[in-house]
């Protein structure tokens, strides 16, 4: 492809810049924006996942990068060069589709060789590159078969081989593991990571599965209603969600309504049911403002353990146990605070930890660092 500017071509992967990207299918109503002002900087060689519920605009955004959809407004630049006016077959982007989209009338070899054939690569060289690509996805010797003779997981590998055989600098994947069973999906997730490390090219991956996004990605862009809700590393998103949507969509969260009472450096002090709770907060909310505090169920503890008096148990709340479920590796408790707020607490199951009974009153405690104002 053409040379990038400003050293954008330094790595083996392409950098992708989305600027105020918009897509409207129905011109009549501006409300029906499938993608509404998405701006993202995807770095060279990065594994970026667009995560969101269905209808959040993640697939539409991917289709616009690939060139199958035309943006209503905004720009897409690959290595600093706008590609909006470029047809998909000139963008040189690898793509893996949700249903694999293997050509049913071609053998595995011909499928993987397809992009090479379009680029006029001679037959002998093509055969070698195809063999290498099939080796890469652990499917050597399958070249003569037809897609319908392969299992779902094998078809998926062929689709990946076909998408990378021509050495694109950018690989797009649209829920490529969606149709596979859980076990296979977990294996292939690891393989995708390995492939990303081996190839060193930029991956843009679309999924609605938050676990998949957390295990595979360098960074995740959480999408909601056509907008980017938050971009960050998996740890960032899990530990420091910017807003209630992200806190609720990635992992499980408890939401506590509270009123701001003051600030202590970076920590905001809020009142929740007459109890003062401290939380981390990026902004500086005014005193008296109504806010929501969030914390993860596995970061809460019953406050009678050995650590109850420590720094890690600064926030405390009185609750009643309303439901107790043993789920193998952990116990899951539904608790109710005095004002009726439901709280979930997850505790490792262990012989030395006392199980709580339904109706029991208890005090829970957790760390300020695990409390976020959203």
């Amino acid at each position, binding site marked *: 492809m053409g040379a990038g500017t400003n050293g954008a071509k330094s790595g083996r992967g392409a950098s992708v810049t989305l600027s105020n990207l918009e897509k409207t299918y129905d011109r009549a109503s501006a409300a029906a924006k499938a993608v509404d002002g998405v701006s993202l900087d995807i770095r060279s060689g990065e594994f970026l996942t667009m995560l969101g519920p269905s209808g959040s605009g993640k697939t539409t955004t991917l289709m616009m990068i*690939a*060139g*199958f959809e035309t943006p209503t407004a905004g720009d897409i630049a690959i290595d600093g060069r706008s590609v909006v006016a470029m*047809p*998909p*077959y*000139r*963008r*040189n*982007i*690898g*793509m893996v*589709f*949700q*249903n694999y*989209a293997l*050509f*049913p*009338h071609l053998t595995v070899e011909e499928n993987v060789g*397809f*992009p090479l*054939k*379009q*680029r006029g690569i001679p037959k002998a060289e093509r055969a070698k590159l195809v063999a290498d690509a099939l080796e890469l996805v652990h499917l050597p010797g399958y070249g003569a078969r037809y897609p319908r003779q392969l299992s779902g997981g094998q078809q998926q590998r062929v689709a990946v081989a*076909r*998408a990378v055989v*021509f050495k694109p600098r950018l690989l797009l994947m649209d829920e490529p593991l969606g149709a596979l069973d859980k076990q296979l999906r977990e294996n292939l997730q690891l393989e995708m990571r390995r492939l990303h490390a081996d190839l060193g090219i930029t991956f843009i991956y679309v999924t609605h599965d938050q676990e998949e996004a957390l295990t595979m990605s360098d960074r995740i862009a959480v999408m909601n209603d056509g907008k980017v809700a938050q971009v960050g590393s998996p740890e960032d998103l899990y530990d420091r969600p910017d807003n209630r949507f992200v806190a609720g969509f990635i992992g499980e969260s408890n939401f506590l309504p509270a009123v701001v009472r003051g600030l202590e450096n970076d920590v905001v002090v809020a009142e929740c049911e007459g109890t003062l709770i401290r939380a981390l907060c990026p902004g500086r909310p005014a005193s008296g403002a109504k806010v929501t505090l969030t914390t993860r169920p596995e970061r809460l503890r019953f406050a009678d353990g050995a650590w109850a008096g420590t720094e890690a148990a600064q926030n405390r709340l009185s609750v009643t146990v309303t439901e107790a479920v043993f789920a193998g590796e952990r116990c899951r408790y539904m608790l109710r605070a005095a004002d009726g707020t439901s709280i979930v607490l997850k505790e490792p199951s262990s012989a030395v930890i006392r199980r709580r009974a339904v109706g029991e009153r208890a005090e829970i405690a957790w760390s300020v660092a695990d409390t976020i104002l959203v």
Partner: protein
Amino acid sequence: MSEVVQPASLALAVSRPKTAPFDWRRAVPLLLAAPLLVYMLVFYALPVAAMLLRSVNDPSWTLANYATLFEDVVFQKTFWITINTSVTVTLGCLILGYPVAMGLVRAKSMAPFILVVILLPFWTSVLVRSYAWMVLLGRHGLVNEALLALGMIDRPIRILNTPLATQIAMIHILLPYMILPIANALRQIDPSLIRAASGLGATPFMTFRQVILPLSMSGVAAGTLLTFVLALGFYITPAMVGGPRDITLSMLIAQQVDQLNWAYAATLSAVLLATALAILAVARKLPGVGNAFRTSMR
């Protein structure tokens, strides 16, 4: 569409393993079809068989009718004209019909309208359509008048009563039989395959050549066979708009029946039927077409 595969699928439905103990429930499909089967047997299979028999037992058991037929210059010429016309018409339908089928599949809100336009002539009698072509193609017909008005010709040209007229009219009549199976095959192509081809670097033309065309071959095969076999037996149109000396097999048969030359007519009919069956049999053996045929039956 499915007309061409019906005999085979019917045979499939009727045949069943003979070893299993008799089960009345399995006989239900056969019983449901029984009235039609009896009707077809009495009013179709028996007369056809009786007629075909005349080619070998009129006046006595002999193959002489066939021997003389194959040496008959009139027959040879007629046979050649029939095949030639059918091939030309089929090719014409394919070339004109394929783009229409693509248009039909790609059109969204316009699709029902296009479908009606394709099928409208289909619902009109062949006789009426052939008369219409006589009016259009005649010495003072619309085509000649238009060509004269445009100054492309100096005096009316002869189109009516030439092989060209037969071909034009037959292509018009047979087009739906080509368009509908192709459109059906095109509609079954997963749109993501076309996106995939494009994303992998294939220009629209390469995508057509390497993905759309091969995947629509089942429809092309079905449409081609259907059109060709139907064209072989065409009678009214060539008789009305064709040339007086361009006689097709079916016209020759009618002529012989008029002259009460039953044995000769029966022999010709047997040859026509055998030709159609042979073409179907050979077509199914061709690797590409055979595959397409099987997938279109699924």
